[in-house]
């Protein structure tokens, strides 16, 4: 049932060998296809063996699942957007989707907007303490780790240390905080992210709480997830045992440490902005927006931006056509439209050709808004975002202060 926890490993020896922590996720995906519980699987694999170029793949043949075994830390494909743009929001297709917490949260926010059919999805979540920006990761391998990036076959983040594994089996370690001080390490949005265990998915899988590299800790987070795990065990695809109390506590402790670190990053990234006067804030952000070349990249990458007929298109008559930088209303409308549902996936900033820190702004506003409305995006499909539920009357209630004077 929901909430059950297991220490699991693949029953298949090949998968056990190829998988990262006991090959559990690979086994579950294979089982989902073989047992015809899903029509296809969405996972990520390295394009032509290049682990800095992870691409999402749609797999229908069980034997091909093995190609996606192992984690790719230096890529963060836009899984939610993939579902809406290319798979019609899973309207007619049953899918098992491997997700990081931000992917799962974006999918849930889109389900609330009827863009994704959650009933057709089995979300297999992976614990995540952050991904690395691919180009910078390659530079980091060369400059800091002093290795050929192509020699790297694995990355791991544990206890604030980034460990890489090379083809010859050797390992190299660097302090993550030190790397991040030098401008390397994780994507900036990931550093600020507090959600490490994907409890909003159907199943949360990860190495926290395990004692060796041959097992995965599983938590079933929905009835659907619990039933699936039960049938995978009954079907002989994975073997499970009950985790010890020490295991469960260790997982909790690691999660808590990662949350603390994220909060420190939030304080660091937000404090400068919060200290600014209103005038300083305006001039700071207007200077940032002044770099915009109106490529629409942030809008097109944002999983929450789903309108087919966008208000910001030139032919809608709202933003002056052919003007660069566009009027400040261009970024502000985007921010206002998505800030209540921002899941801090960082896709907007990844694609921004001008390096406008748009993800920082939207996430900061989202945090302020979450405090006011007690709404956490992407955590519960039954809770609708504040912009959908707050009425004009509520906004006018006396004694309710909804100003953003933080």
């Amino acid at each position, binding site marked *: 049932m929901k909430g059950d926890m297991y220490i699991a490993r693949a029953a298949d020896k090949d998968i056990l060998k190829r998988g990262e922590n006991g090959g559990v996720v690979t086994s579950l995906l294979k089982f989902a296809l073989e047992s015809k519980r899903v029509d296809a699987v969405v996972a990520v694999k390295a394009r032509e063996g290049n682990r800095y170029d992870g691409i999402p793949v749609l797999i229908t043949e069980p034997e091909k699942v093995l190609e996606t075994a192992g984690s790719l830390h230096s890529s963060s494909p836009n899984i939610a957007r993939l579902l809406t743009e290319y798979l019609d929001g899973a309207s007619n297709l049953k899918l098992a989707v491997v997700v990081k917490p931000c992917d799962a949260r974006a999918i849930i926010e889109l389900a609330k907007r009827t863009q994704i059919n959650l009933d057709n999805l089995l979300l297999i979540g992976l614990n995540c303490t952050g991904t690395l920006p691919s180009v910078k990761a390659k530079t980091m391998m060369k400059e800091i780790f002093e290795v050929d990036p192509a020699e790297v076959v694995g990355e791991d983040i544990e206890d604030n240390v980034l460990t890489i594994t090379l083809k010859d089996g050797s390992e190299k370690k660097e302090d993550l905080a030190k790397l991040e001080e030098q401008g390397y390490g994780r994507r900036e949005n990931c550093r600020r992210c507090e959600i490490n265990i994907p409890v909003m998915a159907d199943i949360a899988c990860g190495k926290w709480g395990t004692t060796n590299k041959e097992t995965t800790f599983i938590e079933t987070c929905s009835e659907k997830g619990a039933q699936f795990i039960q049938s995978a065990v009954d079907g002989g695809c994975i073997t499970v045992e009950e985790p010890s109390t020490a295991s469960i506590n260790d997982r909790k402790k690691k999660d808590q440490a990662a949350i603390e670190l994220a909060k420190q990053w939030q304080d660091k990234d937000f404090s400068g902005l919060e200290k600014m006067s209103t005038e300083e804030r305006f001039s700071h952000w207007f200077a940032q927006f002044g770099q915009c070349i109106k490529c629409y990249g942030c809008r097109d990458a944002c999983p929450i931006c789903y309108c087919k007929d966008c208000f910001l*298109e*030139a*032919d809608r008559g709202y933003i002056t*056509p*052919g003007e660069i930088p566009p009027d400040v209303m261009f970024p502000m409308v985007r921010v206002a439209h998505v800030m209540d549902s921002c899941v801090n996936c960082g896709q907007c900033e990844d694609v921004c050709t001008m390096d406008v820190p748009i993800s920082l702004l939207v996430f900061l506003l989202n945090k302020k808004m979450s405090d006011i409305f007690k709404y956490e995006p992407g955590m519960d499909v039954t809770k609708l975002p504040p912009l959908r539920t707050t009425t004009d009357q509520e906004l006018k209630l006396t004694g309710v202060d909804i100003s953003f004077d933080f």
Partner: protein
Amino acid sequence: MSLRTPKLVSEIAQGFVEVNSKDALQAGLKNKDVVTLATRRGSIETRAKITDNVPPGLLFAAFHFPDSRGNALTNPALVPGAKCAGTKVCAARMEVKQ
């Protein structure tokens, strides 16, 4: 530009020439006035966009809008060795169309 991409057409559908504000003042030119640009090779009509993005004495026009083909003005001669065309820059005269 072919004008066959609706998204781009809705951004900018017509050509223009960028004129520095000092030159515009001297010529008695207002934003969006129609001007004639002429060289010994040909002439085009287009609308003026007054901006300090270009310095005084310099005009800038794109050459891909069908309504104001900048290459009607430029010199198609090639550099003998490199075969690079002189279609990027030339001296031109601007007159405000009354």
